[in-house]
């Protein structure tokens, strides 16, 4: 299935891109996709710790399983205001 991954803040700079469409196995969880991005894909460096994430514009658990066309966002701790 295809998902959209968006990067924000310093994570965007680390990743070197704002957004990409990824092909991931059916049943992939948020955590597994983040691991995949961190370890298996070249050209991306997600050093931020803690790395925050949101699925379809909502904070969620790392165990959440994605569906086709979902939007996963990765970013550092928020600092608005």
């Amino acid at each position, binding site marked *: 299935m295809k998902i959209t991954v*968006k990067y*924000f*803040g*310093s994570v965007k*700079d680390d990743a070197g891109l704002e957004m990409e469409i990824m092909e991931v196995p059916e049943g992939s969880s948020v955590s597994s996709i983040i691991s995949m991005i961190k370890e298996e894909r070249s050209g991306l460096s997600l050093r*931020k710790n803690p790395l925050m994430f*949101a699925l379809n*514009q*909502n*904070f969620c658990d790392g165990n959440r399983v994605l569906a086709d066309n979902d939007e996963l*966002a990765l*970013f*550092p*701790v*928020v*600092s*608005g*205001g």
Partner: protein
Amino acid sequence: MIRIQEEPLDVEELIRSTRNAEAGAIVTFQGTVRKHSGSMEVTSLIYESYKEMALNAIHAIVDEAMVRYGVLDVNVVHRIGLVNIKEDSVAISVSSAHRREAFEACEYIIDSIKKKVPIWKKDVKPDGEAEWRD
């Protein structure tokens, strides 16, 4: 009114939208850009947002605050892009029958925005370099 915008904030308009004939109090918070970030001097900040999510998150915070504190009207505007020293990055205006709830709701909303809304900022230093604050 809940908005995220690049334009400077119009606090007078924000307060006008918050006024209410049943209100005895309006409390307004403005977050303004300081000349210092810790011990470092800055000339401005650059704000970035995950806009769709940030708007949803602010809506959720405001809805919760209105129920929890029983206030009458709440309006919030957050600025993104380049914000200079002394300018507002965020403004929150709350009206309520009595003042205590307006103070509490306003403080709750800014505390929650800082914790839960996907917006990030970069300090711009006098040499022009910008650095994420996180």
